[in-house]
């Protein structure tokens, strides 16, 4: 294979690590490669030697560092407006807890409609970064509604069969719900991770907090036995936690470096855990704290496993060093 093509490979490799999502980076590299290969082919058709054609095509793109920097400016950092839009659901839910608005069905319906509507809107409009927190809350609402519906169905069946309480029916419901909920979570996360696994982490951010709140209610039987007014004791703490999440989302969307974004997510988790244990009176010793913090960190970073790096052999420029004639290799590659 012609040595000139090494220059293309070198250029493509220089463009790597733009600091943007791996999926977007692959898309940009593939686009640059397809441009270079078309230009080289056209120049060769005019009788220009391959090496010179490659050199000219690459030179016209300019320094790879400039392109990489421009792409990072576009994709790695959101505008302040987008960042505020991404933090808005956390602020709204924080206000819901602060003013005990969850007791008002009209507010809950409004919030659910707004959240679901914006999540659907964002999904249909190219999944902008601000929409992931909205998607996270929509997912939480969908999963809790699904659980309630299944619980109601289980209870109705128990009544029909004249079984006291739900008994085994509860286990059937839980046994059916867990894989179903996990399936929904993995399916949505898989789609989101096609763009960037960090967006899945952003989407998952409120889930441990909401799950912890629900479990705490369950644990203390406050919801069913002590009346709704005792539930209000937990509200200020939840409002603080959600405000911390909101600020964290603003910083996350404004940061450019991925490593800083990941560090921010992890430190937010630790911060939330501290506020949670102080405000909710959850007794956690040092070991317990480390274990819970580690579990939350693993949960938030687990979407990285969904990231598909792609087979390097399937990258269009993989054929550059193959033994095939140039045009044939390119045709196969793209």
């Amino acid at each position, binding site marked *: 294979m012609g040595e000139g093509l090494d220059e293309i490979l070198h250029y493509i490799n220089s463009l790597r690590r733009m600091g943007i999502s791996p999926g977007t980076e692959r898309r940009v590299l593939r686009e640059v490669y397809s441009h270079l290969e078309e230009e080289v082919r056209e120049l060769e058709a005019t009788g220009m030697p391959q090496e010179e054609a490659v050199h000219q095509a690459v030179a016209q793109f300019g320094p790879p560092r400039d392109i990489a920097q421009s*792409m990072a400016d576009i994709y790695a950092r959101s505008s302040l407006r987008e960042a505020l839009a991404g933090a808005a659901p956390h602020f709204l839910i924080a206000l819901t807890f602060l003013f005990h608005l969850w007791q008002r069905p009209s507010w809950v319906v409004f919030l659910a409609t707004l959240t679901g509507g914006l999540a659907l809107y964002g999904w249909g409009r190219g999944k902008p970064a601000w929409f992931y927190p909205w998607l996270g809350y929509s997912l939480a609402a969908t999963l809790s509604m699904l659980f309630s519906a299944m619980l109601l169905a289980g209870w109705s069946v128990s009544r029909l069969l004249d079984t006291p309480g739900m008994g085994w029916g509860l286990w059937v419901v839980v046994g059916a719900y867990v894989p179903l909920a996990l399936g929904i979570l993995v399916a949505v996360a898989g789609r989101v991770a096609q763009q960037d696994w960090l967006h899945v982490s952003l989407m998952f951010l409120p889930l441990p907090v909401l799950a912890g709140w629900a479990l705490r209610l369950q644990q203390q039987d406050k919801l069913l036995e002590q009346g709704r007014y005792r539930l209000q004791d937990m509200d200020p703490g939840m409002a603080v936690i959600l405000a911390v999440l909101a600020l964290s989302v603003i910083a996350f969307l404004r940061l450019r470096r991925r490593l800083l974004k990941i560090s921010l997510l992890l430190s937010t988790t630790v911060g939330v855990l501290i506020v949670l244990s102080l405000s909710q009176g959850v007794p956690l010793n040092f070991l317990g704290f480390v274990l819970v913090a580690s579990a939350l960190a693993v949960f938030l970073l687990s979407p990285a496993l969904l990231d598909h790096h792609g087979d390097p052999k399937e990258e269009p420029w993989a054929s550059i060093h193959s033994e095939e004639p140039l045009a044939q290799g390119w*045709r196969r590659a793209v």
Partner: protein
Amino acid sequence: MAYVKELLKGNTDPLLLSLINLRAMYGYEIIKEVARRSEGYFKLNEGTLYPALHRLEKAGLIEGRWQPSITGQERRYYHITDKGHDVLTARRKEWKGFARAVELIFGV
């Protein structure tokens, strides 16, 4: 020539929207089309084109899709969105007003 370069730089986005509004195009095709339609007056370079296309895409004004070209090879074709169409209409109107005002002062 530096003045023309500056003018082109300031108008890259509406020019791209205008071209993509005619039909879906991919990067290399856009560079050729800019040169052809301007009779060689404008030469858009790759280092300006691709960041501009991606910026427009992120703003939701255009949408890129991998599609086979007439040669059968996959190319990333950019399509204008409804939002992009609205922005283009507004930019054309602004340009008409601006160009008319400049012409009145230049006396051309």
